[in-house]
Structure formats: C-alpha cells, structure tokens
C-alpha cells in the first residue's frame, strides 16, 4: 500500500513541470480571487438595494431620484467585484 502511494506520488511529481505548476497555482488562486472579491460587493449591493426599496416605499414621490442614486451606488459597488473578475481572467488566461 505504501509502495503504491509512493509510486503515485512519484508519478504525479514527474508529470508536473514548473510551468504547469505555475498555471495550476494561478488557476486555483483565480477562483479565490473572484470568490473573495464577490463577497463584499454582494453584501454591499444587497444592503444598498434594500435601503433604496425602503426609501422608495416610504416616499414614493422621490422614487425616481432614489432609483438613479441606487444605480449609481450599485455601479460603484459592483466595480470591485468586476475588478475581481478581471483579476480572475488575468490569472486564469493571461
């Protein structure tokens, strides 16, 4: 059993050349990059839209202004997640 494990380890070791190792690390960290980058903006956008809906429900006559501001806020918040996505693309494919 132990011998088998050793053989497997050797075989995998042999198969991995440095460039591939780097690619693998990049691919793995790409997932982390995007996943982590999505947390904050996710919370932020949820909070933002919830508050905006609250404001619109309280004051329907100001709904247009609130909506515009909400989209602006979403745009700014979302940019962070999108930068994470770009980093993902860079790590994975560049």
């Amino acid at each position, binding site marked *: 059993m132990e011998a088998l494990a050793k053989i497997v380890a050797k075989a995998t070791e042999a198969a991995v050349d440095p460039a591939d190792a780097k690619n693998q690390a990049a691919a793995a960290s790409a997932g982390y990059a995007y996943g982590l980058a999505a947390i904050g903006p996710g919370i932020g956008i949820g909070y933002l839209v919830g508050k905006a809906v609250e404001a619109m429900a309280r004051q329907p006559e100001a709904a247009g202004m609130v909506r*515009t501001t909400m*989209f602006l806020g979403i745009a700014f918040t979302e*940019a962070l997640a*999108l930068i994470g996505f*770009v980093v993902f693309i860079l790590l994975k494919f560049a």
Partner: protein
Amino acid sequence: MIALEFPPINAILRWQDVAPSFNKIAIIAVLATIIGCTIFAMAARADARKAPRGARNLAETSVEFIENGVIMQTMGRDGLGWTPFLLTLFLFIYLCNVPGIIPFFQMPATARMAIPGALALMVWVVYNGAGIKHQGFGGYFKSVLFPPGVPKALYVLVTPIEFISAIIVRPFSLAVRLFANMLAGHILLVTFALLSESLFQAKDKILIPFGVLPMFMLIFLTGFEVLVAFLQAYIFTILTAVYIGGAVHPEH
C-alpha cells in the same frame, strides 16, 4: 461521464478578420453607427407635427430618456447642451452590447477592452476638458484636488485620494465595469450553451434529457443579458453625466 471541454478564452473572444483588420467587433461597431444614424435619420424625416410613430417614437423616447432620466437627474437644466453627446454614447454602447444576445452575432462588442477603453478615455478627456474650460486650469485642479470645506490638515490625506480617484480610478473603473460585465455575461452564455450541447450529444443516453436544464438557464440568462445590456449603457452614460456635472459645477 462527460467531460466539458471549454475552448481557450481567445477562441470565444477573438475573431478572424473578414477583411483586412476588419473583424466581427468592427462589424458590430460600424453597424451600431449605421443603425443609430438610420433610426435618427428616419426620425428626422418623419413629420414632426403628427404624433410620433415607429422610428420617430423610438428616437424621441431615447432623447427624452437621456434628458429626463440622465441629465435632469445629475446635471440639472443647464446640462441639456450635453444631450447629443450623452445620447450618442448611450445608443452606441447599447447597440454594441445588444449583439451579445442576437443570433449570428452572439458577441457584445464591448466584451473586448478596445471600445470601453477608448470610450472611457474619451470621457476622461471630455470631463476634464469641460472642467478646465469652465473653471480654468488652476481653478479646476484646485477644486478637484483641494475640495472646499475640508480642514487644512486633512489635505495631506484627501489630495492624493482625490487625485487617484478623479484622475486614475474613474476612467479605469468606467471601462472595466462595462467590459467586465459584458465579458462575464458572454462567458456565462458560452458556458451554459456548451454544457447543454455536450449533454445533448452525450454518449450516455441517460444524460441527454438533462441537457434541458442548462438550456433553461441559457434562456434565463439571455433574458438577463437584455437587461444588463441596457443597464450597463445607462450606467456608463449616467456616470459620464455625473463626472461632467461635477467638473462643470464643483459645488454640487
């Protein structure tokens, strides 16, 4: 089991030239210009006195959308002179986004960095230029770098932040937002299309009915992309309006 073989990213983003240095992105950009001009030319030809129909209705709706939904909300009445610029920006980006879901195009032209980058750079030049024109060179940079109403000691902190945010981050985030949104949508569509296709063509006959699930997802995402195409064009336009308004009237 099936193994989904995802094509290299450039295979779904880069297109061969149909003519020297004229690929699908260029086709979409040129078509966007032609379609936009055609709609407005038809609108301009139509009788203005009658109730608007067809192309004229479309054109007037978009003009009013830009004036009431973008300019009045951000710049106020004296920003109405920017209508042609913002309208063109909005229409061009929208018409470049929409081919992402139109069969045979299936590619938003804005999912490549070229068009968003160029537009963002142009917007950067425009709002800085507008600020310099309205307040003079010194006045503009003073109002950008040293915002009034801040304690003097804090300028050490505020000025670099304002510089980075106003001069570097704004065009960058403007370009990246549009580009990354459209690219993400495109990749999502590709993924689900590939998934359902490989399920439909699976050797294991049992897997074939499951291909319907990603197909439904694909349909849903296509509908979502319709929304995103509009929303991203709107956000790009309204942010441009906000930047221009901020540069022209720093007190707001």
